């Protein structure tokens, strides 16, 4: 019995990791609304944010169901505090300039797409189904972000410089996507979610190819930040939650 309970706990954690990452990135992307450098990007960013928020509803909805304590996706999104969030550190990085926003998106999409592909093979049908739906959306996200990284990396001198700076800044936050802990191991052993490091070859191949075409160079330093998946975040997340959760916290009994 004990292993079953543990697996349920791990499953809840794993689903929060997926749903919190899409929630936090969706929120960040939505901060651009009305402020993008061209109208087409306003439209694209809103679209990406919309997909990510939709995926959040599914992942956190399932997390609430698995947890079985009556919390739905909104309760998880709007009523947990910073240390209960399980998103990757990469996605809570502030938007920075448009180059940083794009680079963050690309580094995430390059992981997100193969991750969802692998999740389609989950032995939990609910997970496989969400992954298949999300995967169709994320294929477009990756196509767009990779294309723009290439065009701006191999663009003007200034766009190249900005994209290289973005890459240097964000690179140390990429390792966490492929690093395993006990939760990941339990989920991988049970065939529910892929082992994070199983995504690495695809991520590296894709990132290598795109950066090459973009004439950008990944930093040499191997140091990688971690902690987001376990609930140890940067200072930025608290400010985001203060904004995002404010109405729910200020009027806890209200229906919206």
């Amino acid at each position: 019995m004990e292993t079953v309970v543990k697996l349920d706990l791990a499953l809840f954690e794993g689903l929060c990791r997926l749903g919190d990452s899409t929630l936090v990135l969706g929120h960040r992307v939505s901060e651009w609304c009305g402020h993008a450098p061209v109208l087409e990007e306003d439209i694209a960013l809103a679209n990406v944010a919309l997909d990510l928020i939709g995926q959040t509803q599914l992942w956190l909805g399932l997390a609430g169901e698995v947890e079985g304590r009556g919390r739905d996706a909104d309760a998880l999104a709007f009523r947990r505090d910073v240390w209960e969030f399980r998103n990757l550190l990469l996605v809570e990085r502030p938007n920075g300039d448009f180059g940083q926003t794009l680079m963050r998106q690309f580094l995430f999409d390059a992981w997100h797409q193969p991750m969802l592909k692998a999740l389609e093979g989950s032995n939990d049908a609910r997970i496989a189904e969400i992954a298949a739906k999300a995967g169709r959306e994320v294929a477009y996200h990756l196509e767009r972000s990779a294309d723009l990284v290439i065009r701006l990396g191999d663009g003007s001198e200034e766009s190249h410089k900005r994209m290289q700076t973005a890459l240097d800044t964000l690179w140390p936050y990429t390792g966490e996507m492929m690093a395993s802990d006990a939760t990941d191991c339990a989920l991988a052993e049970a065939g529910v979610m892929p082992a994070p490091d199983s995504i690495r070859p695809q991520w590296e191949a894709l990132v290598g190819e795109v950066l090459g075409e973009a004439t950008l160079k990944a930093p040499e330093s191997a140091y990688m930040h971690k902690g987001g998946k376990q609930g140890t975040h940067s200072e930025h997340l608290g400010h985001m939650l203060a904004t995002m959760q404010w109405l729910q916290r200020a009027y806890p009994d209200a229906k919206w």
Partner: protein
Amino acid sequence: MYAQMVKSEATTEDPEKLAAFQARIDAGEKIEPKEWMPEGYRKTLIRQIGQHAHSEIVGQLPEGNWITRAPTLERKAILLAKVQDEAGHGLYLYCAAETLGVSRDELTEALLSGKMKYSSIFNYPTLNWADIGAVGWLVDGAAIMNQVPLQRTSFGPYSRAMIRICKEESFHQRQGYDIMMKMAQGSPEQKAMAQDALNRFWYPSLMMFGPSDKDSVHSAQSMAWKIKINTNDELRQKFVDQTVPQAEYLGLTIPDPELSWNEEKGGYDFSEPDWSEFFEVIKGNGPCNAERMEARQKAWDEGAWFREGLMAHAAKRAARKIAAE
């Protein structure tokens, strides 16, 4: 209805050509971009479509102000979808304007330099969550009132853009009203937010139709050309008649003590908005004019490297293609 106070241009062309042009319009034909049209018609349309497009773009800002604070995931998704639609409307409208010989960049520069305007309504702030409901219900409601007849406007690309836009706007209005319902049926604080939103947005919404146009020659020319279909007063009356029962259903009070049903005219009598406030807002003295323009200017300036980078890449790619051939 994001085009207010658009003055039509005088036209000095050959009277025979003008008469033939007018006959086509009177016969209900659509004018297409490559066909002959009076310069006044072209210029008036550029101004009107451009102003409408700018309004869609600036209109993202007051609503975008609440995307990061939307109270549920579903509300956030709906609002994102709505604001994305607005950006899409801006895109169709800029494209429609481009068929008249003006580029999107030229129109953007005219907006940023203050030569072109956008609807005065977007210079009002969104201060509580019910404002997002009120914007959908009242502002999009007023927009639809104006845009439904514009589906029949004489210029083909504008008319077709309006048909598409109207479909989406009616969804926007419904989602706005849905937020108002939730708020009006909610806790005492939520009801107070709903009433507060209505109080602040009522008169600015009435202003969206522009001042009374009974004395305007410009309006008469635009109506003859079917660039404008109804008078401002007709549309405003229609809007009030539609909206008052909706407010009653919500249990909210329209902030107009003079509001009363007039049996004889079959419509409501209501107070005029404060037109001096309207002209101040148009002049740039509304509560948010400075912020709205600052935000657009910042997006344009800070996006310059992005746009230039893409152009540089396109040039490199073209050069490589030529070299390979």
